[in-house]
Structures are given as C-alpha cells and as structure tokens.
C-alpha cells in the first residue's frame, strides 16, 4: 500500500515539492499504477528469458578515440551562476 508518506519521500528524493493534498493524490495514483503493473505477475513466464532491455541489441561499443570537447564558455552557458570557470551551486556541505 503506497501511503502519503511514501509519496512525500519519493518526492523529496527527486527534489519535487508537493503539497499535502497533492501527495495523497499521487499516492493513490502510484497505488493504481503498481496494481496495474502487478497484472504481469499473472503471466506464466517460465520460458521467457529475463532481460533488462527492450532492444534485441548487445555489445554496442565506442572506440577509444578522442573528439573535441565543448569550450569552457560553451559548457557554462547552461549555468544559472558561474565563478572561476566553474558552475556555482548553493553550498552542499556545512
């Protein structure tokens, strides 16, 4: 059973701010989604090989050859704040 607390925890891990009433609604939705997915458990998958991927592909490699990178200016154009050639973010350590 997905509770409001579960929803709030997941939201906080994803840095999504939820109002109490939103959390309850999303908990209900998640509960429905999980129940829906649970239908898969009714299938007999004895002869089905487990997979972690939807594509019938494996061993897709890249050779170890260098391509030019973005310049510092190009890289930092996405930053909200920058300083000394770096992205600047709120302090993460006390």
């Amino acid at each position, binding site marked *: 059973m997905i509770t409001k607390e579960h929803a709030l925890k997941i939201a906080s*891990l994803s840095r999504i701010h939820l109002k109490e009433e939103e959390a309850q609604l999303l908990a209900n939705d998640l509960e429905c989604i999980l129940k829906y997915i649970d239908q898969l458990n009714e299938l007999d998958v004895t002869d089905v090989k487990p997979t972690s991927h939807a594509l019938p592909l494996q061993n897709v490699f890249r050779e170890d050859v260098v391509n030019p990178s973005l310049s510092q200016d190009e*890289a930092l154009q996405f930053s909200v704040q920058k300083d000394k050639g770096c992205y600047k973010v709120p302090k993460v350590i006390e």
Partner: protein
Amino acid sequence: MSMDFETVIGLEVHLQLKTATKIFCACANQFGEQPNSLTCPVCLGLPGTLPVLNKKVLEYGIKVGLALGCEINPYIKFDRKNYYYPDLPKAYQISQYDFPVAKNGLVMIPMEKGELKKIRVNRAHLEEDAGKLTHEADGTLVDYNRTGTPLLEIVTEADMRSPQEAYDYLQVLKLTLQYLNVSDCDMEKGSLRCDANVSIRPREETKLGTKSEIKNMNSFKAVKAALEYEVIRHTQVILSGEKIVQETRLWDDNKQMTLSMRSKEEAHDYRYFPDPDLVPFVVKADKIKEIRQSLPELPYAKLERFKNQYNLNGYDAFILVLDQTIAQFFEECVALYPEAKKIANWLNGPLLREISDRKSSLAELKLVPASLAGLIKMVEDGVVSNLVGKDVLKIMLDTGKSAEQIIQENGLAQVSDQESLTRIVDEIIKENPKAVGEIKSGKENVLGFLVGQTMKKTQGKANPKMIGEIIKRRILDA
C-alpha cells in the same frame, strides 16, 4: 570493564582507468586542464544524449578482474545509481549493480614468517567518476572535467583485521595494478582512491559491529592512520557505554583525526535500476581467454621466479619486483653479466638511492643495462673500488657515458701497482706516528684509520685490501 576487541576492515578502491577518452563519451580523459574544458553534452547529462561504452574500458575492467583472480561475468549491464548531488549533473551515476564485470577474486598479502593471507575481493564494477566540488564560503564550485572518467571500483570482503593488513592489501593491489598498466595509481592525483569501512567487535562475537565509512585519505599511510584513529575512537565510545553511529567520516590529515562529514546529501537510497540508455554486454569465453593471455607476469609469480631462477633471497627479489621497470632492467643486466646477486645489490642499493635523491625514475634516467652491467663488472674485476664505482654511477647518470669511458677520462682506475701505493703508504706512516705506535703495540683496529687516510690521499682510487696489507708490512716488518 576490560574487553578484547577485534578490528574488522573492508576497503573500496576507486581506480581511474588510463584510457584516452572517458567511459561513455569521446571527451579526453585528462587531469589538470582548465575547469569545465573537457565536457560534452553526454558527460554534462544534457537531455537527448546517449552514453556509449568505451571498448577499452571494458577490456581494462576484465584485465584487472583476471589479475585479481576474479570470475568475469559473461553477461554484464549498467545501472543507474540515483542521488541528488551537484557532482553529477544527471542526478544519477551510471554504475553496475547486480552484474558487475568481475566478482569473487583474491588478493594475497604478506604476513609474518613469509606466510600469506587471503583477502577476498567481493566484486569489481565499472562506473563513471563524478565532478570535482570546491566548497567556498558562499557556495560550491563544480568542475565537470572529471565527470565520466572511467572508474573501476574494487570492493573487498571485510577480511582485514588490522590497519596494517589494510595497508598491505593496498600495497599489493597497487603493485598488481601498476603491472597491468591500466592506471596511474597516483593517490595524490586521485587516480587511486580508497574508502575504508571499519568496525570493532568483542573478540568472540561473530556479528559485525556498527561501522563507520572513512574517506578523504590521500596516501596509504593516511589510510592506515585514519583506521588506527577510528579503532581507538570506536573502542572509547563502546567502553564508555555509548553506541557507534553509522556515518561517513572524513580524514583530516593536518589534525590527524576523522571528522563527521555532515553532508547535506540525503541518506543513501539509491534506487538502482537498469540504465535504459545502455544495452547489455556479453563477454565471450574466447575474449576472456585472449585478455588472460595478454596479462603480464604478475608480482607474486615474478617474485617466486626471481628467487628460483637467480637464487636471490626474498628481500632482494621483493625490492626488485616492487617496480616492474627495475625488475626488467635487472633481468637485462643479468643477461649481460650473470652475477645476479651483485646486480641486485647495485640496483637495490646505490641505484635506487640515486633515483630517490634525484626524485626521478629509472625510465627518466636513460640508463642502459649495458652501462650498469659494465660498471659492476669493472668493480668486480678490481678496476675500481666499490666506493669509486658509486661515483662512476653518478657520472654515468649525469652524462650517459659508459663506465669504461668515465674511468678513463677521470683517471679513476685503482692504483694497484705496489710501488706507487707503497710510496703513498710511507707518507701516511710518516704523518701519523701516534697511530703507527698504537698498531705496533697491538691495536690492530687502528689499521682501518690508516687505510682510510690512504684512500683519502688516493681519492679512493686504491684497493683497500692491498693498502691494508702494505701498511701492515711496512709497520710491522720495519
């Protein structure tokens, strides 16, 4: 209350692999460039980009796995380890969860009396390195150059029972990794990093105690010191009746203590799941065989061979094996002049001292085996004394000339004709009547002093054994 505690340690080593490019994109894998000058849409985690695995990274991972005696997983995949922290722009790290490249390995560490202890390697998995954070007063600066650097994380079982064993494990591991030439293994530059999990428990207890994870050690010595500190801290906390809090602590090398990290990172809840951007990898047996055959002779095998083939003692062989280039140089010298023990002495003594004095390496010195073998032969043949030989070595390293040339150009050949040596000895006898008197009255040990004086006068060019005999003869027969 008196209690006997046992220390339990497990280590996680993060090894940066020395490939030309990053693990999932074609940015150069380089250290020390301008911040944020080695990034691209893939390693910046921009929407719509796709990571593609660097072929060499997987090969290196298999190589290390095999060298550590691991099984290589025939099927491997990559997973997302989710955490929200600015060192990763995607808010997840591509890592390996349940199908790592290698598992169940063994590293043997030396114990007392030549015995070996097995440290089990639980797994080795590939992942991407994170960016570098610099914490400033009003914010945190982020450099994403390191993001996407290929890492191999090597995780042991909690098999070490003392900080010394942890230190020894790291030494053996690093040596093995250096032999494989897959990483710079430089802790100061961060290409080899070690986190340690440590706990203590009453000696008869089988359940593990609460652990602390320690990070931020920038040398093996620091790892050992941090572990020693933690063992004492744990013991004090437990003996005072309190409980150890499971937490991450950072080693402060200046204060020589660990401090609680107090990071704002959320408690570990990584929600691993298969990365849909990367397809799985199947490693065929013949690929594993091919990589296994490409492995160099590993340190323990070389050590045993050196002891047997060259009749060296364990210590000499060990020092040689500690550096692959030295070991190879040794063998090349022996091929030219088959006096293995003598060559080992010269390499492990004077040559290593010169290398360390010059803060250099054998590769940088441009010394060729023929030069050193030639020098040792001339010392053994009595052309120059051991002492002069060491000076010749210095000149050799400065100039790259052969021993023969150096000895000739500098007139360093030992004076070994009786006549000129006797003349010098007579002068010394005249200058040191007191010592001569003492020798005459039976104090033979003063002889060494006169030999030394004579050596000084000949600038070390005389054969000390010969001088000793001449002095004795001139004084006692007089």
